[in-house]
């Protein structure tokens, strides 16, 4: 039995004046309209997002009703909402449910994100270091850059390509095109990352409707199937890690490829959570598209990575990964047959989740 995506709803990403639950409602409503089903046809709701990135304790109290959860079975993953896709898959695969609303939410303008992320540091070993979330990503970038001798221009080129694609994508947050010179002359933010090499903090919501195979075909003649899923976690203690690679992504990808019965060669497109240009390269390598240290060769090729503009252009903490998966699903609906999407969470990409979608 397969599980398919039969409805896709996304809000524009940016800074929203409306409260996050109204944005969530908009995404959910769009997904129902896209699937051409009514709210009562859902039998469960799977939410994904963090309390802190919307500024409310038990934030699913607000998003469950917005997602159509009134008097329905509901659960929330408190992590990137791509995990919610995995959980919804298991709930349907097990035979317990037929049709799920998966809703991811992020509303970074509600709260000081850097400060909030500092609170994820444990009080004994890490908190006194005052290490910011961005610093941990900069440390990984630096480790990777030094290990493989990646030039600044290569990193800048990643940004240029992401921005170019985002400029043509209606849902993306940052859509102004930039040149390599613009990137290299932007202010150094957290070494080795310049201002234009860091993602924005975005607001926005994503809703996907998942259904069991038979139901899926009833709802939509061409569902997008969830072919593979994988997720994994790395060591919390940064000092115990090899920061020059995304090992949890690698393990998650192995699980997903095994489930899908394929490898990177069968995948036509990737939507990756590139919180820095170096993470773009590291993710492509961890997902099996290039040998370690050779991700930059893909930048010069016509490989289809981040046609959405990636996390460097749209980053609603809590649903960035589901945004990428939904963007991939839209591509599969129109152009390609199989793609992979990816998300990371935590300091220095501690956790990873990967989804392979196809027709």
């Amino acid at each position: 039995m397969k599980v398919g995506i039969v409805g896709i709803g996304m809000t524009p990403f940016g800074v929203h004046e409306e409260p996050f639950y109204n944005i969530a409602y908009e995404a959910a409503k769009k997904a129902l309209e896209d699937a051409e089903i009514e709210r009562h046809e859902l039998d469960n709701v799977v939410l994904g997002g963090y309390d802190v990135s919307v500024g409310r304790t038990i934030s699913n109290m607000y998003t469950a009703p917005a997602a159509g959860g009134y008097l329905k079975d509901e659960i929330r993953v408190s992590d990137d909402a791509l995990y919610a896709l995995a959980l919804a898959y298991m709930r349907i695969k097990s035979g317990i449910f037929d049709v799920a609303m998966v809703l991811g939410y992020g509303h970074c303008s509600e709260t000081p994100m850097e400060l909030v992320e500092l609170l994820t540091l444990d009080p004994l070993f890490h908190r006194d270091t005052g290490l910011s979330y961005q610093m941990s990503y900069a440390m990984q970038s630096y480790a990777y850059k030094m290990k493989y001798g990646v030039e600044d221009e290569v990193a800048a080129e990643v940004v240029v390509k992401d921005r170019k694609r985002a400029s043509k994508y209606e849902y993306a947050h940052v859509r102004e095109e930039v040149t390599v010179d613009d990137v290299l002359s932007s202010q150094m933010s957290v070494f080795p990352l310049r201002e234009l090499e860091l993602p924005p903090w975005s607001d926005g919501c994503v809703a996907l409707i998942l259904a069991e195979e038979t139901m899926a075909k009833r709802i939509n003649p061409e569902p997008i199937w969830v072919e593979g899923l994988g997720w994994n976690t790395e060591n919390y203690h940064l000092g115990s890690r090899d920061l020059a690679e995304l090992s949890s992504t690698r393990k998650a990808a192995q699980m997903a490829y095994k489930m899908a019965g394929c490898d990177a060669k069968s995948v036509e497109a990737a939507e990756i959570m590139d919180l820095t240009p170096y993470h773009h390269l590291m993710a492509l390598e961890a997902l099996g598209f290039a040998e370690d240290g050779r991700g930059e060769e893909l930048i010069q090729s016509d490989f289809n990575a981040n046609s959405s503009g990636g996390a460097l252009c749209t980053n609603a903490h809590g649903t960035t990964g589901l945004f990428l998966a939904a963007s991939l699903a839209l591509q599969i609906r129109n152009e390609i047959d199989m793609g992979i999407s990816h998300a990371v969470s935590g300091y220095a990409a501690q956790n990873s989740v990967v989804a392979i979608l196809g027709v």
Partner: protein
Amino acid sequence: MKRVAVVGVGQTNFRTRRDDKTHPELTREAVSRGLEHAGITMDDVDAFVFGTMDPFDGINCPDRWSSTAAGLGKPFMKISTGGTTGLTTGIAAYQHVASGLFEVVVAVCTQRVGENVDAQPVLNTAVDPIYERHSGVGAISVAAIQATVHMQKYGTTEEQMAWVSVKDHENALKNPYAHIQKKIGVEDVLSSPVVSSPLKLYECCPRSDGSVAIVFASEEKAEQMRDNPAWVIAESSISDSYFVGDRPDLAVWDSLSIAGRRLYRLAGIDDPKKDIDVAELYSPFTIQEILELEALGFADKGEGARLAEEGVTFIDGDMPTNPSGGVLCTNPIGATGLVRLGEASLQVMGEASNQVDGAEVALAHAWGGTLQFHALMLVSSHKKLRR
């Protein structure tokens, strides 16, 4: 649908503060005990599901810290749904196995409410900042409203509610992990200070630090691991509307009735009083056990208050409820629901510290939000219910 069982339960001691251990150390303690109970090691675990309510722990996303102690290098997923977190974490872990993706999955919930000066102001931040937050509403105040309405509508008395507390405290004396271990009588309850009228101190739960872990296994693995697994029969959860003011009648918990009805239909239960032997309910306040017993069909509407008073819910009564001492004596908020499932599982394994004679079917329950969510799981010593 693939059959799944609980094969191991591990708990830490629950106390006001567990300053002797860090978050991951508490997690590891519960997980180690759960694995030991199942007779397996960390290598045998395919995936972890972790639950907590971050705003209580004094650290955001403590799962990231704790996962290195239990879950490193494995699929690890974090669940958080409010007061129901413990049980929805159990439900998610069950679904991991039921999907066929994993054979052995550990659900673990660690919560350190002791990191807060007070839990109620934290809960108040869940309430809408414009319409309801200024009223100061938290868990105690909504429970007090439920009590007031129930007293007015059905004539429930303070003495009747006090009996619930007497019963839970008596049970907790037999549970080595329980937080509050103190023998009290009805007079002690009635003369304790009022916290939120009409609820008095001994009618309100403590705030606890601690951790609980439950090992779930596929049918084949479960039968290899032990001869008395607790088979998961059914689960159900429900989300109501957001505002407390939108509830039609606070004297009845209708959303729990709906969730209960769905659970019973899945399990093939027509009379919960006969078909269920023991219940572990999420009742941090005495009135809530009464409302829950009514909503779940163990008592008629308005009659729930008589159950403790008449001894029905005591360990030797017809419907033993919270033989562990319940939430009234131990409440590590985001872990509490999983403790309910752990205690319910131990009852049908025949290994509970305060064992109900011959218990074969046990119900675990949790509620969350401001009366918004419920989660339920039913476990049995049989793969299918007897009837």
